[in-house]
């Protein structure tokens, strides 16, 4: 097989390894729409990266964090409900990104690649970012695992018990931004949330504890990447959507599994 296929597989597996545990938290904390907002704003990051001539990944992380902080500030005003604010930020950022990209005439930009991913065009440099950023994310996530879980269960209970809730939440948002910058190349900004929540949702039925669910989600993600890539090569499908569809299939299979007996819980 050609090199580009192995690079694609390695990149996809790297993303799945991080997306599993992070996606589990997105599901537990009901942050799917928040994930969408951050990933949509990533296109603005790409556009600004081009305009300012800085590293695109860093620009993505920076813009995602800015949007997240903006959301916190808007929520404090209590003018609009959170979901409405997310919708406003999400689509404003996406549109702004598209407009800025349209203004850049000097660079030919593969817009479809950023929207839906371009896994078959992964370079060695991309791989380095995926595994470097991915490893960093996983190590940091392991370090904040228990406080983050406590905050997920009940923020104020955690705070009374001495967890630094604000710092934990900020760390989580930072990790979300990192994951998005890592996953853009693989599935594109429009499908990143799918890569986060589908494997986690598929893992739920089989998991007995949070760590088990995170690990199973990573595994489901890797299977989806391998299956989606294979389907993409066999039937000439767009790779990013094929990977997401493979994950959807895994979720459908797990949802169809018979319920476990009540006593075993």
């Amino acid at each position, binding site marked *: 097989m050609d090199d580009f296929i192995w690079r694609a597989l390695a990149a996809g597996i790297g993303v799945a390894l991080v997306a599993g545990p992070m996606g589990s938290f997105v599901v537990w904390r009901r942050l799917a729409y928040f994930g969408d907002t951050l990933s949509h704003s990533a296109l603005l990051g790409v556009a600004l990266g081009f305009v300012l001539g800085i590293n695109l990944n860093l620009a993505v992380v920076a813009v995602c964090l800015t949007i997240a902080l903006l959301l916190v500030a808007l929520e404090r005003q209590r003018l609009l409900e959170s979901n409405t604010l997310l919708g406003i930020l999400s689509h404003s950022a996406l549109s702004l990104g598209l407009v800025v990209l349209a203004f850049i005439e000097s660079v030919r930009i593969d817009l479809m690649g950023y929207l839906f991913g371009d896994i078959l065009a992964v370079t060695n440099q991309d791989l380095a970012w995926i595994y470097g950023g991915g490893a960093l994310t996983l190590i940091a996530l392991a370090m904040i695992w*228990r406080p983050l879980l*406590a905050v997920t*269960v009940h923020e104020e209970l955690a705070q*009374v018990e001495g967890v630094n809730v604000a710092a934990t939440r900020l760390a989580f948002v930072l990790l979300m931004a990192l994951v998005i910058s890592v996953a853009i190349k693989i599935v594109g900004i429009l499908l990143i949330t799918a890569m986060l929540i589908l494997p986690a*949702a598929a893992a739920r039925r089989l998991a*007995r504890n*949070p760590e*088990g*669910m995170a690990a199973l989600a990573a595994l489901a993600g890797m299977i989806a990447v391998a299956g989606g890539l294979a389907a993409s090569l066999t039937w000439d499908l767009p790779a990013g959507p094929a990977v997401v569809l493979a994950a959807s299939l895994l979720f459908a299979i797990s949802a169809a599994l018979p319920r476990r007996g009540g006593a075993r819980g």
Partner: protein
Amino acid sequence: MKKGDLCVRLSDVSLSFGRRRALSDVSLSLHRGEIVTVIGPNGAGKTTLLRIVLGLEKADSGTVFVKPGLRIGYLPQRLRIDDTLPLTVRRFLALQPRVASGVAAALAQTGASHTIDLPVQRLSGGEMQRVLLARALLREPDLLVLDEPVQGVDVAGQAEIFALIRRIRDERQTAVLLVSHDLHLVMAATDEVVCLNHHVCCSGHPATVARDPAYRALFGDDAAAFALYAHKHDHAHDHGADPHG
């Protein structure tokens, strides 16, 4: 009863959210081994008062004294854990910082041993309160703060949970601050009642409060029945005061 060390003292505490006044010149003190119940109608600022004691909310004015190093066990009003999170009671109890052992013993103390391997989402209202109490006990608290501890618990279970809270107080000399909008049971299970409707309407021994005009004004006809209820407990041999008589 002789009062223990001072744990918490609020003096003339006020707090507004925007133009809405939540608390107005509220004072309250809490000693070791004492059970203080805050009652009042919905939206009277009860939970806000607890949040100030817990340090989750800052008062606009007034002073808040919490004894340095005070360990607080907190039972929030509602704990909805998403169904997607696979979490057993055992893990739930071990989630807090600095707790590794004693989970089973804490559950045994609150009568919830059978739940240890159940997913938290499957607990009934009463079981959840017992599990939350166990989680609080693991911290060996000096102060227990309970927000509507018997909400969603059946009547028999309510009495058991209040009995449990009193037993914990007796055994550990824990200070207890609890909130309720439900008058039943509270009157008999507390040392001091604070009647709150943004400001303190009246406070004191349950029997005294029950006879207070401000209390009756706040709770209307219900209050009269409770005056009798409290009275009955005060004078166990006075059959004339039996509300059912």
